[in-house]
Protein backbone atom coordinates (compact mmCIF):
# COMPACT_ATOMS: atom_id res chain seq x y z
CA UNK A 1 0.00 0.00 0.00
CA UNK A 2 1.22 3.46 -0.86
CA UNK A 3 2.91 5.33 1.97
CA UNK A 4 1.43 8.77 2.42
CA UNK A 5 3.47 9.95 5.43
CA UNK A 6 6.90 8.76 6.36
CA UNK A 7 8.58 10.62 9.20
CA UNK A 8 11.81 9.51 10.83
CA UNK A 9 13.61 10.94 13.86
CA UNK A 10 11.54 14.09 13.81
CA UNK A 11 12.75 16.69 16.26
CA UNK A 12 11.30 20.08 17.06
CA UNK A 13 12.14 22.46 19.85
CA UNK A 14 10.85 25.91 20.78
CA UNK A 15 13.00 28.53 22.39
CA UNK A 16 10.79 30.25 24.94
CA UNK A 17 13.66 32.29 26.42
CA UNK A 18 17.47 32.16 26.48
CA UNK A 19 17.45 29.39 29.03
CA UNK A 20 14.07 27.80 28.45
CA UNK A 21 13.97 25.52 25.40
CA UNK A 22 11.05 23.17 25.06
CA UNK A 23 11.69 19.93 23.20
CA UNK A 24 8.25 19.44 21.63
CA UNK A 25 9.24 16.43 19.49
CA UNK A 26 12.18 14.19 20.16
CA UNK A 27 12.97 11.51 17.57
CA UNK A 28 9.40 10.80 16.62
CA UNK A 29 8.76 8.24 13.88
CA UNK A 30 5.49 8.07 12.02
CA UNK A 31 4.20 6.15 9.05
CA UNK A 32 0.75 6.53 7.53
CA UNK A 33 -0.40 4.50 4.55
CA UNK A 34 -3.03 5.32 1.98
CA UNK A 35 -6.48 4.67 3.37
CA UNK A 36 -5.33 4.68 7.01
CA UNK A 37 -7.64 6.06 9.66
CA UNK A 38 -5.11 6.95 12.35
CA UNK A 39 -5.30 8.74 15.65
CA UNK A 40 -2.49 10.57 17.42
CA UNK A 41 -3.19 10.42 21.12
CA UNK A 42 -1.40 11.47 24.23
CA UNK A 43 -1.62 13.82 27.21
CA UNK A 44 -1.64 17.61 26.85
CA UNK A 45 1.75 19.00 25.88
CA UNK A 46 3.02 15.68 24.52
CA UNK A 47 3.62 17.22 21.06
CA UNK A 48 0.46 16.09 19.22
CA UNK A 49 -0.34 19.51 17.74
CA UNK A 50 3.33 20.15 16.89
CA UNK A 51 3.45 16.85 15.01
CA UNK A 52 0.18 17.66 13.22
CA UNK A 53 1.52 21.08 12.19
CA UNK A 54 4.68 19.47 10.84
CA UNK A 55 2.66 16.85 8.96
CA UNK A 56 0.48 19.64 7.56
CA UNK A 57 3.53 21.64 6.39
CA UNK A 58 2.57 24.51 8.63
CA UNK A 59 5.90 24.05 10.39
CA UNK A 60 9.19 22.24 9.65
CA UNK A 61 11.10 19.78 11.83
CA UNK A 62 14.50 20.90 13.17
CA UNK A 63 15.88 17.47 12.38
CA UNK A 64 14.73 14.22 10.80
CA UNK A 65 13.21 13.38 7.46
CA UNK A 66 9.63 13.67 6.36
CA UNK A 67 8.01 12.68 3.09
CA UNK A 68 4.41 13.34 2.15
CA UNK A 69 3.05 11.34 -0.76
CA UNK A 70 6.63 10.58 -1.77
CA UNK A 71 7.85 14.18 -1.67
CA UNK A 72 10.61 15.15 0.76
CA UNK A 73 9.20 18.08 2.69
CA UNK A 74 11.69 18.24 5.60
CA UNK A 75 13.31 21.43 4.41
CA UNK A 76 10.66 22.61 1.99
CA UNK A 77 10.39 26.37 1.60
CA UNK A 78 7.01 28.05 2.16
CA UNK A 79 6.84 29.02 -1.53
CA UNK A 80 6.48 25.33 -2.45
CA UNK A 81 4.79 24.21 0.75
CA UNK A 82 1.60 26.20 0.20
CA UNK A 83 1.00 24.46 -3.13
CA UNK A 84 1.40 21.05 -1.55
CA UNK A 85 -0.83 22.09 1.34
CA UNK A 86 -3.52 23.24 -1.05
CA UNK A 87 -3.52 20.10 -3.21
CA UNK A 88 -2.44 17.21 -1.02
CA UNK A 89 -3.52 18.12 2.52
CA UNK A 90 -6.91 18.90 3.98
CA UNK A 91 -7.37 20.40 7.46
CA UNK A 92 -10.21 20.05 9.94
CA UNK A 93 -9.80 22.17 13.05
CA UNK A 94 -11.24 21.89 16.51
CA UNK A 95 -13.07 25.22 16.41
CA UNK A 96 -14.37 24.67 12.84
CA UNK A 97 -12.61 27.86 11.77
CA UNK A 98 -14.82 28.84 8.93
CA UNK A 99 -14.45 32.35 7.54
CA UNK A 100 -17.33 34.22 9.22
CA UNK A 101 -18.08 36.57 6.30
CA UNK A 102 -18.45 33.73 3.79
CA UNK A 103 -21.42 31.44 3.27
CA UNK A 104 -21.10 27.67 3.65
CA UNK A 105 -20.68 27.30 -0.11
CA UNK A 106 -18.10 30.10 -0.32
CA UNK A 107 -16.11 28.63 2.56
CA UNK A 108 -15.82 25.33 0.74
CA UNK A 109 -15.12 27.01 -2.59
CA UNK A 110 -12.32 29.10 -1.03
CA UNK A 111 -10.18 26.01 -0.47
CA UNK A 112 -10.90 24.97 -4.08
CA UNK A 113 -9.66 28.36 -5.23
CA UNK A 114 -6.35 27.89 -3.42
CA UNK A 115 -6.20 24.38 -4.87
CA UNK A 116 -6.31 25.84 -8.39
CA UNK A 117 -9.85 24.82 -9.31
CA UNK A 118 -11.71 27.01 -11.79
CA UNK A 119 -14.78 28.84 -10.46
CA UNK A 120 -17.40 26.59 -12.09
CA UNK A 121 -15.55 23.45 -11.17
CA UNK A 122 -15.13 24.42 -7.54
CA UNK A 123 -18.75 25.48 -7.29
CA UNK A 124 -20.01 22.14 -8.62
CA UNK A 125 -17.65 20.20 -6.36
CA UNK A 126 -18.52 22.29 -3.30
CA UNK A 127 -22.26 21.83 -3.92
CA UNK A 128 -21.81 18.06 -4.33
CA UNK A 129 -19.80 17.78 -1.14
CA UNK A 130 -22.27 19.87 0.84
CA UNK A 131 -25.08 17.71 -0.48
CA UNK A 132 -23.21 14.57 0.64
CA UNK A 133 -22.87 16.19 4.07
CA UNK A 134 -26.63 16.72 4.16
CA UNK A 135 -26.27 20.50 3.94
CA UNK A 136 -27.93 21.12 0.60
CA UNK A 137 -30.38 23.60 2.09
CA UNK A 138 -27.71 25.38 4.15
CA UNK A 139 -25.30 26.36 1.38
CA UNK A 140 -26.12 30.06 1.56
CA UNK A 141 -25.99 30.31 5.33
CA UNK A 142 -23.14 32.00 7.12
CA UNK A 143 -21.32 30.11 9.92
CA UNK A 144 -23.08 32.03 12.69
CA UNK A 145 -26.42 30.76 11.37
CA UNK A 146 -25.34 27.12 11.63
CA UNK A 147 -24.99 24.62 14.47
CA UNK A 148 -21.59 23.28 15.58
CA UNK A 149 -22.20 19.98 13.81
CA UNK A 150 -23.18 21.72 10.60
CA UNK A 151 -20.11 23.94 10.77
CA UNK A 152 -17.82 20.95 11.26
CA UNK A 153 -19.39 19.20 8.27
CA UNK A 154 -18.72 22.31 6.18
CA UNK A 155 -15.14 22.27 7.45
CA UNK A 156 -14.89 18.63 6.35
CA UNK A 157 -16.29 19.47 2.91
CA UNK A 158 -13.70 22.25 2.70
CA UNK A 159 -10.93 19.78 3.56
CA UNK A 160 -12.10 17.41 0.84
CA UNK A 161 -12.73 19.71 -2.13
CA UNK A 162 -9.20 19.39 -3.55
CA UNK A 163 -9.27 15.60 -3.13
CA UNK A 164 -6.19 15.60 -0.90
CA UNK A 165 -4.02 12.55 -0.22
CA UNK A 166 -4.19 13.29 3.48
CA UNK A 167 -6.74 14.85 5.83
CA UNK A 168 -5.44 16.12 9.16
CA UNK A 169 -8.00 16.70 11.87
CA UNK A 170 -7.09 18.47 15.10
CA UNK A 171 -9.61 17.51 17.80
CA UNK A 172 -12.48 17.50 15.27
CA UNK A 173 -15.05 16.70 17.95
CA UNK A 174 -13.55 18.89 20.66
CA UNK A 175 -16.37 21.44 20.57
CA UNK A 176 -19.23 19.09 19.82
CA UNK A 177 -21.66 17.22 22.05
CA UNK A 178 -21.30 13.43 22.17
CA UNK A 179 -24.14 12.73 19.72
CA UNK A 180 -22.81 15.17 17.13
CA UNK A 181 -19.26 13.89 17.75
CA UNK A 182 -20.37 10.41 16.81
CA UNK A 183 -22.07 11.73 13.67
CA UNK A 184 -18.89 13.50 12.63
CA UNK A 185 -16.71 10.47 13.32
CA UNK A 186 -19.12 8.31 11.32
CA UNK A 187 -18.88 10.77 8.47
CA UNK A 188 -15.06 10.71 8.56
CA UNK A 189 -15.14 6.91 8.59
CA UNK A 190 -17.56 6.88 5.66
CA UNK A 191 -15.22 9.00 3.55
CA UNK A 192 -12.31 6.78 4.64
CA UNK A 193 -14.22 3.62 3.74
CA UNK A 194 -16.07 4.75 0.59
CA UNK A 195 -13.44 7.01 -0.97
CA UNK A 196 -10.30 5.54 0.59
CA UNK A 197 -9.35 8.90 2.08
CA UNK A 198 -6.43 8.91 4.53
CA UNK A 199 -7.14 10.52 7.90
CA UNK A 200 -4.82 11.44 10.77
CA UNK A 201 -6.78 12.65 13.77
CA UNK A 202 -5.35 14.26 16.87
CA UNK A 203 -7.71 13.56 19.74
CA UNK A 204 -8.22 13.36 23.46
CA UNK A 205 -11.50 11.61 22.98
CA UNK A 206 -11.30 7.88 23.70
CA UNK A 207 -14.35 7.15 21.56
CA UNK A 208 -12.74 8.86 18.60
CA UNK A 209 -9.47 7.00 19.21
CA UNK A 210 -11.33 3.72 19.43
CA UNK A 211 -12.97 4.41 16.10
CA UNK A 212 -9.55 4.66 14.46
CA UNK A 213 -7.82 1.69 12.84
CA UNK A 214 -4.39 2.75 14.02
CA UNK A 215 -3.28 4.71 17.08
CA UNK A 216 0.00 6.61 17.43
CA UNK A 217 0.81 7.29 21.07
CA UNK A 218 2.97 10.23 22.06
CA UNK A 219 4.39 11.03 25.47
CA UNK A 220 6.82 13.86 26.27
CA UNK A 221 7.52 14.42 22.59
CA UNK A 222 8.40 10.80 21.89
CA UNK A 223 6.69 7.72 20.51
CA UNK A 224 5.22 5.93 23.47
Amino acid sequence: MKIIISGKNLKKSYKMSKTNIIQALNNVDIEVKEGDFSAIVGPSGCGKSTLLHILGLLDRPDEGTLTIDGIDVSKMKEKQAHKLRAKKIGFVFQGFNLIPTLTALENVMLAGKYGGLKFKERKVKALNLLEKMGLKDRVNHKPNELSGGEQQRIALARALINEPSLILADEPTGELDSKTSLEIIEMLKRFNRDENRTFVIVTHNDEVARACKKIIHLRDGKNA
Partner: protein
Amino acid sequence: MEILRNMWRRKFRTFLTIFGIVIGMFAFTVMGSMALNFNKMIDGGKRFFTGQISIMPKGSSYMGGSGGMLPVDTLNKIAQVEGVEAVAAGIELPMEEPNPDDPIGSSMSFGVPPTIEGTDLGSSYRNRNWVTLDMKEGRMLEKGDSDDKIVIGSTIALDKNWHVGDKVKIRGREFKVIGIINKTMTGPDSYIFMPIQPARELYIESNPFLKSLKEQSDNAAKISDAALATMSLETRDQILQAKSFKTEDVNTVASASWEEGFDSEVVANRIKDQFKDEVLVLSPQKMGEEIDKAMVIFNAIILGVALIALVVGSFSIINTMVMSISERTKEIGIKKALGASGWAIAREYTLEAGVIGLLGGAIGMGLGVLTAVLLNHRMAQKGAEIFLIQTNFLVTVIIFSFAIGIIAGIIPAMRAAKMKAVDAIREL
Protein backbone atom coordinates in the same frame (compact mmCIF):
# COMPACT_ATOMS: atom_id res chain seq x y z
CA MET B 1 -17.48 40.66 -2.69
CA GLU B 2 -15.55 39.21 0.24
CA ILE B 3 -13.60 42.47 0.35
CA LEU B 4 -16.78 44.51 0.76
CA ARG B 5 -18.05 42.13 3.42
CA ASN B 6 -14.77 42.43 5.31
CA MET B 7 -15.00 46.21 5.13
CA TRP B 8 -18.60 46.00 6.34
CA ARG B 9 -17.53 44.05 9.44
CA ARG B 10 -16.21 47.25 11.01
CA LYS B 11 -18.61 49.72 9.50
CA PHE B 12 -17.73 52.72 11.62
CA ARG B 13 -13.98 52.29 11.24
CA THR B 14 -14.33 51.78 7.49
CA PHE B 15 -16.57 54.82 7.29
CA LEU B 16 -14.03 56.98 9.15
CA THR B 17 -11.20 55.79 6.93
CA ILE B 18 -13.19 56.37 3.76
CA PHE B 19 -14.28 59.75 5.08
CA GLY B 20 -10.62 60.77 5.43
CA ILE B 21 -10.01 59.86 1.80
CA VAL B 22 -13.23 61.61 0.79
CA ILE B 23 -12.00 64.90 2.25
CA GLY B 24 -8.62 64.61 0.56
CA MET B 25 -10.06 63.67 -2.81
CA PHE B 26 -12.78 66.31 -2.54
CA ALA B 27 -10.09 68.96 -2.06
CA PHE B 28 -8.03 67.46 -4.85
CA THR B 29 -10.98 67.45 -7.26
CA VAL B 30 -12.05 71.00 -6.47
CA MET B 31 -8.54 72.45 -6.50
CA GLY B 32 -7.59 70.40 -9.52
CA SER B 33 -10.61 71.58 -11.52
CA MET B 34 -9.75 75.12 -10.56
CA ALA B 35 -6.16 74.57 -11.66
CA LEU B 36 -7.32 73.09 -14.97
CA ASN B 37 -9.43 76.15 -15.58
CA PHE B 38 -6.57 78.43 -14.64
CA ASN B 39 -4.09 76.48 -16.74
CA LYS B 40 -6.41 76.55 -19.72
CA MET B 41 -6.73 80.30 -19.32
CA ILE B 42 -2.98 80.76 -18.95
CA ASP B 43 -2.35 78.37 -21.80
CA GLY B 44 -4.56 80.47 -24.07
CA GLY B 45 -2.54 83.52 -23.08
CA LYS B 46 0.66 81.62 -23.71
CA ARG B 47 -0.54 80.59 -27.14
CA PHE B 48 -1.31 84.21 -27.94
CA PHE B 49 1.86 85.73 -26.52
CA THR B 50 4.14 83.14 -28.08
CA GLY B 51 2.64 83.90 -31.48
CA GLN B 52 3.94 87.46 -31.54
CA ILE B 53 6.71 89.75 -30.34
CA SER B 54 5.20 91.84 -27.56
CA ILE B 55 6.27 95.46 -27.28
CA MET B 56 5.56 97.69 -24.33
CA PRO B 57 6.52 101.17 -23.29
CA LYS B 58 9.69 101.27 -21.24
CA GLY B 59 8.92 101.21 -17.53
CA SER B 60 5.92 98.94 -17.84
CA SER B 61 5.59 95.24 -17.21
CA TYR B 62 3.89 92.54 -19.20
CA MET B 63 1.39 92.05 -16.39
CA GLY B 64 0.19 95.65 -16.82
CA GLY B 65 0.84 98.82 -14.90
CA SER B 66 2.09 101.08 -17.64
CA GLY B 67 2.33 104.79 -17.53
CA GLY B 68 4.28 105.15 -20.74
CA MET B 69 3.23 105.38 -24.34
CA LEU B 70 4.42 103.90 -27.59
CA PRO B 71 4.69 106.79 -30.08
CA VAL B 72 3.58 105.91 -33.56
CA ASP B 73 6.93 107.09 -34.99
CA THR B 74 8.76 104.53 -32.85
CA LEU B 75 6.38 101.79 -33.97
CA ASN B 76 6.86 102.76 -37.61
CA LYS B 77 10.63 102.57 -37.11
CA ILE B 78 10.29 99.14 -35.45
CA ALA B 79 8.31 98.01 -38.49
CA GLN B 80 11.40 98.78 -40.60
CA VAL B 81 13.67 96.41 -38.59
CA GLU B 82 14.90 93.50 -40.66
CA GLY B 83 12.61 90.51 -40.25
CA VAL B 84 9.65 92.48 -38.89
CA GLU B 85 6.58 91.86 -41.00
CA ALA B 86 4.20 94.30 -39.37
CA VAL B 87 3.58 96.13 -36.12
CA ALA B 88 0.13 96.76 -34.68
CA ALA B 89 -0.45 99.38 -32.05
CA GLY B 90 -2.95 98.60 -29.33
CA ILE B 91 -4.72 100.02 -26.34
CA GLU B 92 -5.58 98.04 -23.24
CA LEU B 93 -7.89 99.61 -20.75
CA PRO B 94 -10.26 98.32 -18.06
CA MET B 95 -13.82 98.23 -19.33
CA GLU B 96 -15.10 100.25 -16.44
CA GLU B 97 -13.65 103.21 -14.63
CA PRO B 98 -12.57 101.90 -11.20
CA ASN B 99 -15.03 102.76 -8.47
CA PRO B 100 -13.35 105.30 -6.14
CA ASP B 101 -14.91 103.47 -3.16
CA ASP B 102 -13.65 100.09 -4.43
CA PRO B 103 -10.52 100.82 -6.44
CA ILE B 104 -9.36 97.17 -6.49
CA GLY B 105 -12.72 95.95 -7.80
CA SER B 106 -12.66 93.25 -10.43
CA SER B 107 -8.92 93.51 -11.02
CA MET B 108 -8.41 91.08 -8.12
CA SER B 109 -11.04 88.63 -9.34
CA PHE B 110 -10.18 85.14 -10.57
CA GLY B 111 -9.28 85.35 -14.22
CA VAL B 112 -8.96 88.16 -16.70
CA PRO B 113 -10.91 91.32 -15.77
CA PRO B 114 -13.18 92.88 -18.44
CA THR B 115 -10.81 94.76 -20.74
CA ILE B 116 -11.13 97.02 -23.74
CA GLU B 117 -8.78 95.96 -26.51
CA GLY B 118 -8.27 98.69 -29.04
CA THR B 119 -6.92 97.07 -32.20
CA ASP B 120 -5.25 98.60 -35.21
CA LEU B 121 -7.50 97.26 -37.96
CA GLY B 122 -5.28 98.76 -40.65
CA SER B 123 -2.19 96.80 -39.69
CA SER B 124 -1.20 93.63 -41.52
CA TYR B 125 0.14 92.19 -38.26
CA ARG B 126 -0.99 88.61 -37.59
CA ASN B 127 -0.53 86.44 -34.55
CA ARG B 128 1.15 83.15 -35.58
CA ASN B 129 -0.79 80.99 -33.12
CA TRP B 130 -4.06 82.82 -32.99
CA VAL B 131 -5.00 83.72 -36.52
CA THR B 132 -8.75 83.92 -36.04
CA LEU B 133 -11.23 83.72 -33.23
CA ASP B 134 -14.34 81.59 -33.72
CA MET B 135 -17.47 83.63 -33.62
CA LYS B 136 -20.54 82.57 -31.69
CA GLU B 137 -22.65 85.21 -33.39
CA GLY B 138 -22.09 88.05 -35.83
CA ARG B 139 -18.64 88.76 -37.19
CA MET B 140 -15.18 89.98 -36.18
CA LEU B 141 -14.07 93.60 -36.68
CA GLU B 142 -12.69 94.28 -40.14
CA LYS B 143 -10.62 96.98 -41.75
CA GLY B 144 -12.90 99.91 -42.53
CA ASP B 145 -15.36 99.28 -39.70
CA SER B 146 -16.66 102.45 -38.15
CA ASP B 147 -15.46 103.52 -34.71
CA ASP B 148 -18.71 102.59 -32.96
CA LYS B 149 -18.45 98.88 -33.71
CA ILE B 150 -17.39 96.41 -31.05
CA VAL B 151 -17.00 92.64 -30.74
CA ILE B 152 -17.33 91.14 -27.29
CA GLY B 153 -16.16 88.00 -25.51
CA SER B 154 -18.60 85.38 -24.24
CA THR B 155 -18.12 86.31 -20.57
CA ILE B 156 -18.90 89.98 -21.29
CA ALA B 157 -21.97 88.94 -23.31
CA LEU B 158 -23.28 86.81 -20.44
CA ASP B 159 -22.39 89.19 -17.67
CA LYS B 160 -23.82 92.27 -19.36
CA ASN B 161 -26.56 90.43 -21.26
CA TRP B 162 -25.44 92.08 -24.46
CA HIS B 163 -26.47 90.69 -27.85
CA VAL B 164 -25.46 91.26 -31.43
CA GLY B 165 -27.17 94.42 -32.65
CA ASP B 166 -27.46 95.93 -29.17
CA LYS B 167 -26.38 99.50 -28.67
CA VAL B 168 -24.40 99.62 -25.47
CA LYS B 169 -22.60 102.25 -23.41
CA ILE B 170 -18.97 101.80 -22.43
CA ARG B 171 -17.36 104.49 -20.33
CA GLY B 172 -20.16 106.82 -21.36
CA ARG B 173 -19.75 106.24 -25.10
CA GLU B 174 -22.22 104.36 -27.28
CA PHE B 175 -21.14 101.33 -29.29
CA LYS B 176 -22.90 98.73 -31.39
CA VAL B 177 -22.21 95.03 -30.77
CA ILE B 178 -21.55 93.34 -34.13
CA GLY B 179 -20.18 90.03 -32.90
CA ILE B 180 -19.80 87.71 -29.93
CA ILE B 181 -16.76 85.44 -29.77
CA ASN B 182 -17.12 81.76 -28.97
CA LYS B 183 -15.99 80.75 -25.50
CA THR B 184 -12.21 80.39 -25.48
CA MET B 185 -11.71 79.75 -21.73
CA THR B 186 -9.04 82.41 -21.80
CA GLY B 187 -8.42 86.17 -22.22
CA PRO B 188 -10.72 86.99 -25.16
CA ASP B 189 -13.77 85.85 -23.15
CA SER B 190 -13.41 89.04 -21.12
CA TYR B 191 -12.38 91.35 -23.97
CA ILE B 192 -14.22 94.07 -25.82
CA PHE B 193 -12.55 94.52 -29.18
CA MET B 194 -12.94 97.93 -30.77
CA PRO B 195 -11.08 99.97 -33.38
CA ILE B 196 -8.04 101.66 -31.87
CA GLN B 197 -9.21 105.25 -32.30
CA PRO B 198 -12.20 105.15 -29.91
CA ALA B 199 -10.09 103.07 -27.51
CA ARG B 200 -7.43 105.80 -27.56
CA GLU B 201 -10.06 108.44 -26.90
CA LEU B 202 -11.47 106.46 -23.97
CA TYR B 203 -7.94 105.98 -22.65
CA ILE B 204 -7.18 109.68 -22.87
CA GLU B 205 -10.50 110.43 -21.21
CA SER B 206 -9.59 108.12 -18.31
CA ASN B 207 -6.14 109.64 -17.81
CA PRO B 208 -6.17 113.18 -16.33
CA PHE B 209 -2.66 113.94 -17.60
CA LEU B 210 -3.37 112.88 -21.18
CA LYS B 211 -6.75 114.54 -21.05
CA SER B 212 -5.11 117.82 -20.12
CA LEU B 213 -2.54 117.44 -22.91
CA LYS B 214 -5.29 116.73 -25.40
CA GLU B 215 -7.27 119.77 -24.30
CA GLN B 216 -4.19 121.96 -24.59
CA SER B 217 -3.49 120.50 -28.02
CA ASP B 218 -7.08 121.08 -29.16
CA ASN B 219 -6.99 124.66 -27.88
CA ALA B 220 -3.61 125.24 -29.52
CA ALA B 221 -4.95 123.93 -32.82
CA LYS B 222 -7.57 126.67 -32.80
CA ILE B 223 -4.86 129.37 -32.78
CA SER B 224 -4.07 130.49 -36.32
CA ASP B 225 -0.53 130.90 -37.55
CA ALA B 226 -1.13 134.65 -37.86
CA ALA B 227 -2.19 134.89 -34.22
CA LEU B 228 0.77 132.73 -33.21
CA ALA B 229 3.19 135.09 -34.95
CA THR B 230 2.07 137.93 -32.73
CA MET B 231 2.81 136.03 -29.51
CA SER B 232 5.97 136.08 -27.40
CA LEU B 233 8.62 133.47 -28.16
CA GLU B 234 8.02 131.66 -24.86
CA THR B 235 4.25 131.44 -25.37
CA ARG B 236 4.76 130.40 -28.99
CA ASP B 237 7.05 127.53 -27.90
CA GLN B 238 4.49 126.37 -25.37
CA ILE B 239 1.71 126.41 -27.93
CA LEU B 240 3.84 124.61 -30.54
CA GLN B 241 4.68 121.98 -27.95
CA ALA B 242 1.01 121.57 -27.09
CA LYS B 243 0.23 121.24 -30.80
CA SER B 244 2.80 118.44 -31.11
CA PHE B 245 0.58 116.09 -29.03
CA LYS B 246 -0.86 113.45 -31.33
CA THR B 247 -3.63 111.04 -30.36
CA GLU B 248 -1.96 108.34 -32.54
CA ASP B 249 0.95 108.35 -30.09
CA VAL B 250 -1.31 107.05 -27.36
CA ASN B 251 -0.62 103.32 -27.56
CA THR B 252 -0.20 101.17 -24.46
CA VAL B 253 0.92 97.99 -26.20
CA ALA B 254 2.10 96.86 -29.58
CA SER B 255 2.51 93.53 -31.26
CA ALA B 256 4.94 92.66 -34.00
CA SER B 257 4.84 89.71 -36.35
CA TRP B 258 7.92 88.42 -38.09
CA GLU B 259 8.43 87.53 -41.72
CA GLU B 260 8.46 83.95 -42.94
CA GLY B 261 11.91 82.39 -42.67
CA PHE B 262 13.04 84.62 -39.83
CA ASP B 263 13.67 83.44 -36.29
CA SER B 264 11.37 85.27 -33.89
CA GLU B 265 14.06 85.37 -31.19
CA VAL B 266 16.59 86.96 -33.55
CA VAL B 267 14.04 89.54 -34.72
CA ALA B 268 13.00 90.30 -31.11
CA ASN B 269 16.66 90.78 -30.15
CA ARG B 270 17.17 93.14 -33.07
CA ILE B 271 14.26 95.30 -31.92
CA LYS B 272 15.57 95.16 -28.36
CA ASP B 273 19.05 96.23 -29.39
CA GLN B 274 17.90 99.11 -31.55
CA PHE B 275 15.14 100.47 -29.31
CA LYS B 276 16.30 99.54 -25.82
CA ASP B 277 15.93 103.13 -24.58
CA GLU B 278 12.33 103.41 -25.76
CA VAL B 279 10.56 100.08 -25.48
CA LEU B 280 10.52 96.76 -23.69
CA VAL B 281 10.54 93.76 -25.98
CA LEU B 282 9.37 90.33 -24.95
CA SER B 283 10.18 87.58 -27.39
CA PRO B 284 7.78 84.63 -27.81
CA GLN B 285 10.27 82.38 -26.02
CA LYS B 286 10.68 84.79 -23.10
CA MET B 287 6.92 85.22 -22.81
CA GLY B 288 6.49 81.45 -22.84
CA GLU B 289 9.02 81.08 -20.02
CA GLU B 290 7.39 83.80 -17.93
CA ILE B 291 3.96 82.26 -18.34
CA ASP B 292 5.29 78.79 -17.56
CA LYS B 293 6.68 80.16 -14.30
CA ALA B 294 3.21 81.34 -13.28
CA MET B 295 1.76 77.96 -14.17
CA VAL B 296 4.42 76.09 -12.21
CA ILE B 297 3.56 77.90 -8.98
CA PHE B 298 -0.15 77.29 -9.34
CA ASN B 299 0.38 73.66 -10.26
CA ALA B 300 2.73 73.25 -7.30
CA ILE B 301 -0.10 74.33 -4.98
CA ILE B 302 -2.38 71.71 -6.49
CA LEU B 303 0.32 69.10 -6.26
CA GLY B 304 0.75 70.08 -2.61
CA VAL B 305 -2.94 69.48 -1.93
CA ALA B 306 -2.71 66.12 -3.66
CA LEU B 307 0.34 65.27 -1.59
CA ILE B 308 -1.40 66.14 1.67
CA ALA B 309 -4.37 64.04 0.57
CA LEU B 310 -1.95 61.25 -0.22
CA VAL B 311 -0.15 61.36 3.12
CA VAL B 312 -3.26 61.76 5.31
CA GLY B 313 -5.19 59.18 3.33
CA SER B 314 -2.32 56.72 3.32
CA PHE B 315 -1.79 56.84 7.07
CA SER B 316 -5.46 56.45 7.70
CA ILE B 317 -5.59 53.38 5.43
CA ILE B 318 -2.39 51.91 6.89
CA ASN B 319 -3.83 52.30 10.39
CA THR B 320 -7.11 50.65 9.44
CA MET B 321 -5.43 47.80 7.59
CA VAL B 322 -2.96 47.10 10.40
CA MET B 323 -5.85 46.87 12.85
CA SER B 324 -7.85 44.80 10.46
CA ILE B 325 -5.01 42.36 9.91
CA SER B 326 -4.29 41.96 13.60
CA GLU B 327 -8.00 41.19 14.13
CA ARG B 328 -7.95 38.69 11.31
CA THR B 329 -4.74 36.84 12.18
CA LYS B 330 -6.85 33.75 12.74
CA GLU B 331 -8.34 33.99 9.27
CA ILE B 332 -4.93 34.45 7.72
CA GLY B 333 -3.87 31.25 9.53
CA ILE B 334 -6.89 29.36 8.20
CA LYS B 335 -6.31 30.58 4.68
CA LYS B 336 -2.65 29.66 4.79
CA ALA B 337 -3.55 26.21 6.13
CA LEU B 338 -5.96 25.85 3.21
CA GLY B 339 -3.07 26.55 0.84
CA ALA B 340 -3.18 30.32 0.29
CA SER B 341 0.19 31.68 -0.79
CA GLY B 342 1.71 34.74 0.84
CA TRP B 343 1.05 36.53 -2.43
CA ALA B 344 -2.65 35.58 -2.38
CA ILE B 345 -2.97 36.93 1.17
CA ALA B 346 -1.05 40.11 0.29
CA ARG B 347 -3.18 40.64 -2.83
CA GLU B 348 -6.38 40.25 -0.83
CA TYR B 349 -5.42 42.87 1.76
CA THR B 350 -3.86 45.22 -0.77
CA LEU B 351 -7.01 45.06 -2.84
CA GLU B 352 -9.12 45.76 0.24
CA ALA B 353 -7.03 48.86 0.92
CA GLY B 354 -7.36 49.79 -2.76
CA VAL B 355 -11.15 49.49 -2.57
CA ILE B 356 -11.18 51.75 0.52
CA GLY B 357 -9.14 54.28 -1.48
CA LEU B 358 -11.35 53.85 -4.51
CA LEU B 359 -14.59 54.32 -2.57
CA GLY B 360 -13.22 57.36 -0.77
CA GLY B 361 -11.91 58.71 -4.07
CA ALA B 362 -15.19 58.13 -5.90
CA ILE B 363 -17.28 59.77 -3.18
CA GLY B 364 -14.80 62.65 -2.73
CA MET B 365 -14.62 63.17 -6.47
CA GLY B 366 -18.41 63.04 -6.76
CA LEU B 367 -18.80 65.66 -4.06
CA GLY B 368 -16.03 67.74 -5.64
CA VAL B 369 -17.69 67.63 -9.05
CA LEU B 370 -21.04 68.48 -7.49
CA THR B 371 -19.51 71.48 -5.71
CA ALA B 372 -17.70 72.62 -8.84
CA VAL B 373 -20.84 72.25 -10.98
CA LEU B 374 -23.00 74.14 -8.48
CA LEU B 375 -20.47 76.95 -8.09
CA ASN B 376 -19.92 77.09 -11.84
CA HIS B 377 -23.67 77.25 -12.34
CA ARG B 378 -23.85 80.21 -9.98
CA MET B 379 -20.86 81.89 -11.56
CA ALA B 380 -22.07 81.13 -15.10
CA GLN B 381 -24.65 83.87 -14.75
CA LYS B 382 -21.68 86.20 -14.66
CA GLY B 383 -19.85 84.14 -17.28
CA ALA B 384 -17.00 83.53 -14.87
CA GLU B 385 -16.87 79.80 -14.25
CA ILE B 386 -13.86 78.99 -12.11
CA PHE B 387 -13.79 75.20 -12.50
CA LEU B 388 -13.02 73.17 -15.56
CA ILE B 389 -14.27 69.61 -15.17
CA GLN B 390 -12.38 67.27 -17.46
CA THR B 391 -13.06 63.56 -17.75
CA ASN B 392 -9.34 62.79 -17.98
CA PHE B 393 -8.74 64.55 -14.69
CA LEU B 394 -11.62 62.76 -12.98
CA VAL B 395 -10.30 59.41 -14.19
CA THR B 396 -6.90 60.44 -12.81
CA VAL B 397 -8.49 61.23 -9.42
CA ILE B 398 -10.08 57.78 -9.33
CA ILE B 399 -6.86 56.03 -10.35
CA PHE B 400 -4.90 58.17 -7.89
CA SER B 401 -7.21 57.30 -4.98
CA PHE B 402 -7.08 53.61 -5.85
CA ALA B 403 -3.29 53.84 -6.07
CA ILE B 404 -3.13 55.55 -2.65
CA GLY B 405 -5.11 52.66 -1.21
CA ILE B 406 -2.93 50.07 -2.89
CA ILE B 407 0.32 51.77 -1.83
CA ALA B 408 -0.90 52.26 1.73
CA GLY B 409 -2.11 48.67 1.81
CA ILE B 410 1.21 47.20 0.71
CA ILE B 411 2.98 47.47 4.08
CA PRO B 412 0.20 45.88 6.18
CA ALA B 413 -0.46 43.33 3.44
CA MET B 414 3.19 42.32 3.41
CA ARG B 415 3.00 41.84 7.17
CA ALA B 416 0.02 39.58 6.67
CA ALA B 417 1.74 37.69 3.88
CA LYS B 418 4.86 37.10 5.94
CA MET B 419 2.90 35.88 8.94
CA LYS B 420 3.97 32.30 9.66
CA ALA B 421 1.06 29.96 9.19
CA VAL B 422 1.89 28.06 12.35
CA ASP B 423 1.93 31.24 14.45
CA ALA B 424 -1.40 32.33 13.01
CA ILE B 425 -2.80 28.83 13.54
CA ARG B 426 -1.75 28.89 17.20
CA GLU B 427 -4.17 31.78 17.65
CA LEU B 428 -6.99 29.40 16.80
